[in-house]
């Protein structure tokens, strides 16, 4: 028979089984049990088929109630897989979910997703269908796909890797499919501070909460489940304080909910435990609702800072490792108990229990009492507590002790299990028990993931056969099953104690709390490696990591190949790297690895648990920071005018600045040429408000300026300003700007737009830590002032009539002056400076008047055809004058001499920031790159900014590059292109012709010149 026929046959069988189960669907749901609302049916779909669930169901419990076990395909072998757990540790039942456009998401745990009317779900990692998946061919070739397989192959022939092998591997990758649309949902975040944060609301967590809450301490209790109660939700039978477990649970929750100092947060997962008791929480707010209120956030990230943290996260049940343990219908016994008691669902009618721990016996009893025919309890142990034996006998359940399981039968649903007695280490004759579910329990693993986020040590406890919390690094307490304790009474007692301890550490006193528990299901058990078998172990498919298809053989192979560290074993086999992050597989993997290594478990160590505890939505982590709120966009007081007048904007640091003001039909080039012409011919107006401004004030202000900036300041008299240059201590240019002396003891410092915060921080650093003796104070006034630059031959004509309290004549107010006066009636600081080479002024007015002043100037400027221009024109005009832009013409490796502004250095000053570094050998060495002008041979060629410069464009690669173009523009004023560049020994190359290779393989020639292209004499600054 061809493989396909085999599959087809299987398919038929599956369908038959489905029909049978379908017939029995009603039997699987027990209306007398569970906490779901049997009166409220809910309809949802799975793989296009509509199913009915109950309000309070998860997708998993609802599917099981409909007899559906097969829900997915495994990662590597595409083996059919079913629901294994009832919690967030689920490795198999991962589904795609959707509630509407843009709201699809992959890999959702069917065991956590609550059903609601209209929920759409789909299975994953199968093609064409879940029942018939072509990928399952891998399963036939499993011998090839052993651990480390990839590293050993796909190498021959080499050329095949890129073209054939890798694309093949990549196609096989992944589980669910990616979302493809924009997510319409909104995500929120909050900070929260409390005395005690309690993670987990089982008996331990609740007892801790009651103890701490009763003292008035602020308490936060979180639980990932839709309901609080933890184990109690699955164990209704014990009596606490003479109340049934569920009645006691309700009263405890009522008491807590009634206290103003308590915050109960369900559907909330503690995802990570960070420094100094900061715990991240992710709260799901709407994924369970069929109708979502407007503006409701889907999830909220909480950043909790807690005085004390109590971890009461319980324990996670360990699977049994044996051949066929991954077949749908094989699941955790504890999960079956939860499905029965919490959801009122039987996972099967004829279950077999396979266990090495007492707890699973109680599952058997609950199922039997619910009307299931428990085919057998198979326990690997030989000595069983008599009480359990009797309870089993009284229910006519067959008990097989000292047995192993060696295979399961069935394809997409378990039909039988093969068990053998083990006597003196030898495996006896097999016997096959037919069943429709295998419920396994290989012991329990304390859930200490969050504790290990704190780098607290985990210590192996030989008695509990588990890692338990050791040395603590944070103010944290662990309670209940997390410390290897078993049973509700022990959990309650330990929780109350943890609460009291936490309060003691907070300096508070807790009242005593004891809880009388009857009918408690205490128990013990053992944990073990893969179960012994009478078959050829090398053909056994005993899975350790279900999702990643890692078998016991793979782990032993890794060890055989020299992987001795458990981290190596993990990475080589990918055990524990699936989406459950090893919650089910780590301990089994470790036990098998240590057996293979012949070492004790603690000698082999443990892989570190890493945040998050369960996978956390990107949206929740991004929170409000999406779209326009991803980061602040700073706008000037004049931005609104620019918007209304059609400006194009460019982002500069956090600011957005008007880039150019296109008139209809103009592209950037045309607009910029027009703005340049207008400014040089008559009058241009520019919003310079983003320039950083710092008030440097105090008796020692001038001394401070002398030490910070390269320039000398002593001789600058009040009312005058000067270009200032700031270096880093390494001697390289950091920032620049015009600095005005307002008074003897007050400087108005301007910085670059991007440099404002850096410069102020640097000044504060020197002032506070190096020169605390100086009496100087620094205040940022960047946003106090709106700054408008007026440039052009008509600048004075525009301003003079508007200025009061300042004679605007050239004599009274020469170039590089500053005055406090009023402009158009607004109090202002007026500078006469120019970054264009034209007669220029900069008017600073209180920010609220910025737009009003701008509009008044526009109106008053009409006679002069005043022209608003943006940053691009500003760049061109300054380049025509050879003024540098920090960060464009300099890049953090340029000294003042390199940039040709050595004149800005106060040579006679004994010291200033960066002076010493300018004397380092390689800084004074010949051949440094120096800033020069370039004029292309073809005046129409505008060089590319960033293009590299060579002497010989014909040379072979790698070429010897001697510099690069830093600025290049079309100069309207000169009717040709201009450029600035840093060139090795540039100052000695004046007149030389250099070459700039272009992207198309060609090259442009250019002559080295000075940087001042326009009005070298500077006459235009002096127009009357």
């Amino acid at each position, binding site marked *: 028979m061809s493989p396909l026929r085999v599959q087809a046959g299987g398919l038929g069988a599956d369908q038959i089984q489905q029909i049978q189960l379908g017939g029995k669907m009603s039997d699987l749901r027990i209306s007398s049990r569970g906490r779901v609302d049997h009166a409220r049916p809910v309809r949802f779909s799975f793989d296009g088929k509509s199913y009915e669930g109950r309000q309070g169901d998860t997708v998993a419990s609802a599917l099981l109630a409909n007899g559906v076990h097969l829900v997915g395909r495994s990662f590597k072998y595409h083996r059919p897989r079913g629901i294994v757990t009832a919690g967030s540790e689920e490795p198999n039942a991962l589904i795609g979910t959707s509630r509407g456009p843009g709201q699809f998401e992959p890999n959702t745990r069917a065991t956590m997703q609550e059903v609601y009317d209209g929920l759409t779900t789909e299975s994953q990692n199968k093609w064409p269908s879940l029942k018939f998946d072509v990928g399952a061919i891998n399963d036939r070739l499993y011998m090839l796909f052993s651990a480390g397989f990839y590293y050993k192959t796909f190498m021959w022939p*080499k050329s095949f890797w890129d073209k054939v092998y890798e694309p093949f591997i990549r196609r096989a990758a992944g589980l669910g*499919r990616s979302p493809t649309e924009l997510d319409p949902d909104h995500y929120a975040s909050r900070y929260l501070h409390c005395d005690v944060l309690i993670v987990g609301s089982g008996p331990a967590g609740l007892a801790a909460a009651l103890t701490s809450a009763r003292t008035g301490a602020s308490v936060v209790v979180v639980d990932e489940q839709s309901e609080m109660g933890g184990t109690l939700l699955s164990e209704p039978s014990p009596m606490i304080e003479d109340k049934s477990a569920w009645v006691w649970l309700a009263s405890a929750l009522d008491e807590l909910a009634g206290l103003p100092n308590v915050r109960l947060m369900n559907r909330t997962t503690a995802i990570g435990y*960070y420094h100094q008791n900061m715990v991240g929480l992710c709260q799901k707010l709407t994924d369970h609702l069929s109708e979502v209120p407007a503006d409701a956030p889907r999830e909220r990230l909480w950043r909790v800072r807690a005085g004390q943290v109590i971890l009461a996260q319980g324990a996670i049940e360990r699977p049994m490792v044996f051949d066929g343990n991954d077949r749908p219908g094989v699941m955790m016994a504890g999960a079956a108990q939860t499905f029965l008691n919490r959801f009122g669902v039987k996972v099967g009618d004829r279950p077999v229990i396979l266990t090495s721990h007492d707890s699973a016996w109680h599952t058997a009893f609950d199922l039997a009492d619910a009307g299931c025919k428990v085919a057998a309890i198979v326990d690997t142990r030989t000595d069983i507590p008599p009480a359990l034996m009797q309870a089993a006998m009284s229910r006519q359940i067959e008990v097989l002790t000292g047995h192993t399981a060696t295979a399961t039968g069935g394809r997409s649903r378990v039909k039988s299990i093969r068990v053998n007695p083990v006597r003196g280490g030898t495996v006896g004759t097999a016997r096959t028990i037919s069943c429709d579910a295998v419920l396994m329990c290989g012991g329990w693993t304390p859930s200490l993931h969050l504790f290990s986020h704190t780098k607290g040590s985990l210590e192996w406890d030989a008695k509990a056969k588990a890692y338990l919390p050791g040395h603590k690094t944070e103010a944290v307490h662990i309670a209940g099953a997390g410390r290897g304790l078993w049973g509700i009474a022990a959990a309650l007692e330990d929780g109350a104690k943890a609460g009291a301890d936490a309060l003691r550490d907070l300096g508070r006193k807790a009242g005593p709390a004891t809880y009388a528990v009857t009918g408690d299901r205490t128990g013990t058990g053992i944990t073990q490696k893969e179960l012994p078998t009478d078959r050829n172990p090398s053909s056994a498919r005993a899975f350790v990591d279900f999702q990643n298809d890692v078998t016991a053989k793979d782990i032993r192979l890794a060890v055989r190949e020299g992987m001795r560290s458990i981290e190596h074993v993990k990475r080589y086999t990918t055990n524990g790297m699936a989406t459950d992050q090893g919650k089910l597989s780590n301990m089994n993997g470790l036990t098998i690895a240590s057996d293979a290594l012949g070492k004790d478990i603690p000698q082999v160590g443990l892989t570190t648990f890493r945040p998050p505890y369960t996978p956390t939505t990107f949206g929740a982590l991004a929170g409000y920071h999406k779209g326009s709120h991803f980061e602040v966009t700073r706008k000037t007081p004049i931005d609104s005018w620019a918007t209304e007048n059609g400006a194009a904007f460019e982002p500069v640091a956090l600011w957005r600045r008007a880039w150019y003001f296109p008139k209809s039909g103009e592209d950037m080039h045309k607009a910029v040429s027009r703005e340049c012409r207008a400014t040089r011919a008559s009058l241009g107006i520019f919003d310079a408000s983003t320039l950083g401004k710092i008030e440097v004030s105090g008796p020692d202000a001038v001394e401070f300026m002398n030490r910070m900036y390269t320039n000398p300041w002593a001789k600058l008299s009040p009312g005058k300003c000067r270009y200032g240059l700031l270096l880093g201590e390494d001697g390289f240019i950091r920032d620049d700007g015009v600095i005005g002396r307002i008074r003897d003891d007050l400087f108005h410092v301007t910085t670059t737009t991007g440099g404002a915060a850096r410069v102020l921080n640097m000044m504060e650093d020197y002032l506070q830590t190096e020169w605390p003796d100086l009496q100087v104070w620094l205040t940022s006034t960047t946003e106090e002032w709106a700054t408008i630059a007026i440039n052009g031959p008509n600048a004075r004509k525009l301003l003079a009539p508007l200025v009061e309290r300042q004679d605007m004549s050239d004599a009274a107010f020469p170039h590089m002056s500053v005055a406090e006066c009023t402009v158009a009636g607004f109090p202002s600081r007026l500078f006469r400076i120019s970054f264009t080479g034209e007669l220029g002024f900069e008017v600073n007015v209180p920010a609220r008047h910025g737009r009003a002043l701008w509009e008044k100037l526009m109106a008053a400027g009409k006679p002069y055809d005043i022209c608003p221009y943006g940053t691009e024109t500003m760049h061109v005009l300054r380049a025509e004058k050879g003024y540098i832009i920090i960060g464009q013409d300099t890049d953090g490796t340029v000294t003042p001499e390199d940039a040709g502004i050595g004149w800005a250095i106060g040579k006679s000053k004994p010291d200033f920031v960066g002076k010493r570094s300018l004397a380092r050998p390689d800084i004074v060495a010949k051949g440094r790159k120096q800033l020069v002008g370039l004029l292309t041979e073809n005046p129409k060629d505008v060089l590319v900014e960033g293009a590299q410069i060579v002497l010989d464009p014909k040379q072979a690669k790698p070429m010897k590059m001697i510099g690069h173009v830093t600025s290049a523009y079309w100069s309207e004023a000169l009717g040709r292109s201009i450029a600035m560049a840093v060139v090795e020994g540039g100052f000695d190359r004046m007149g030389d012709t250099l070459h700039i290779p272009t992207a198309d393989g060609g090259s442009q020639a250019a002559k080295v010149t000075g940087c001042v292209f326009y009005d070298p004499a500077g006459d235009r600054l002096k127009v009357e």
Partner: protein
Amino acid sequence: MTHFSALSLLKNALTGNKNWTEQWPDAQPKKEYDVIIVGAGGHGLGAAYYLAKEHGITNVAVIEKGWLGGGNTGRNTTIIRSNYLYDESAKLYDHALDLWDNLSTELNYNIMYSKRGVMMLAHNVHDVQSFQRHIHSNRLNGVDNRWLSTAEAKAFCPPLNVSPDARYPVMGAALQMRAGTARHDAVAWGYARAAAKRGVDIIQNCPVISIRRAADGSVDGVETAKGFIRAKKVAVSAAGHTSVIMQSAGVKMPLESYPLQALVSEPIKPVFPCVVMSNTVHAYISQSDKGELVIGSGTDQYVSYSQRGGLPLIEHTVAAICEVFPIFNRMRMLRKWGGIVDVTPDRSAILGKTPVKGLYVNCGWGTGGFKATPGAAHLLAWTVAKDEPHKLNAPFTLERFTTGRLIDEAAAAAVAH
């Protein structure tokens, strides 16, 4: 040690994979070696391999405090590229790229070097100028790197958000097609196996306590948890821990160690064809062959060896990813971890001799160490064997911090105006 071939795979498959032998023995230290390499990451193991293969020096020990490949080699986001600005960097990283290209075959170990292309996004005029400078410089250096328009960038990486209304619009991109990723663990394992095969001892779980110097000041060996081991040549290749170890030899380093975090999403079917980096919003992302989105974050602000790192940085990193790739908003973070990166003042590595005779150092790779692995290893081996730097690593000296001849890739991307 079994040679990997189609035949050996098949044979073993048919015999239940029972006959695979260990890939490297669990060596115990000898009294003396010709060369000791401190740090069994990709760089250290690779150096040992090249010492044996290209310089005939096989009496070599690689000493590791934990498990091999457990440091930054096994913690990085596996981005491999060489489109650096300065000649020195571009040539060094391109040398590494040449070695990456043939590494699987050379080591008989599939390290899954995937030339899927690395695309760096430009979000403002300054980025465009800076990338153009890189591209022109790279082209003339014979290094692959080209400019993509916004539309070309979108075509190359469909999940990219190119809306002009984005807070950080994409104004274009630089693409190095030869660049990509590799399987980080396999690099360490492949080098370890190949080195061991040539007689190198790999000694794990053996912390180095100090470097001992002889009376004449030259290196005498290392004190370790497993006792003193003599060697006339010691090469320190210990990333974040370099400062501490060099201090014991009396050499102070211009290094600081910072926490660097990274994360992966849950695995999904292939959706992301390349590597994308955005230095402006700090988003670094690719999709692993397993299907996880592999995402790099920035460093925390303070020096630390804790390998922890804070939540705010992760929030920002994920927000940045969703800004550039909004369709991933409903994806989930599966696992995040921290590494320790050693950073120099000019953000370039130190690879060469030290003031101490017989002591060599390879450190300061910051966030760029993985991509350099074969190159750094190859050049470190050369430098140790010949007691002089190869011309490619000659500029990466300790002395440059005295003379001021820095190789400042970070400053070259300086932002201001």
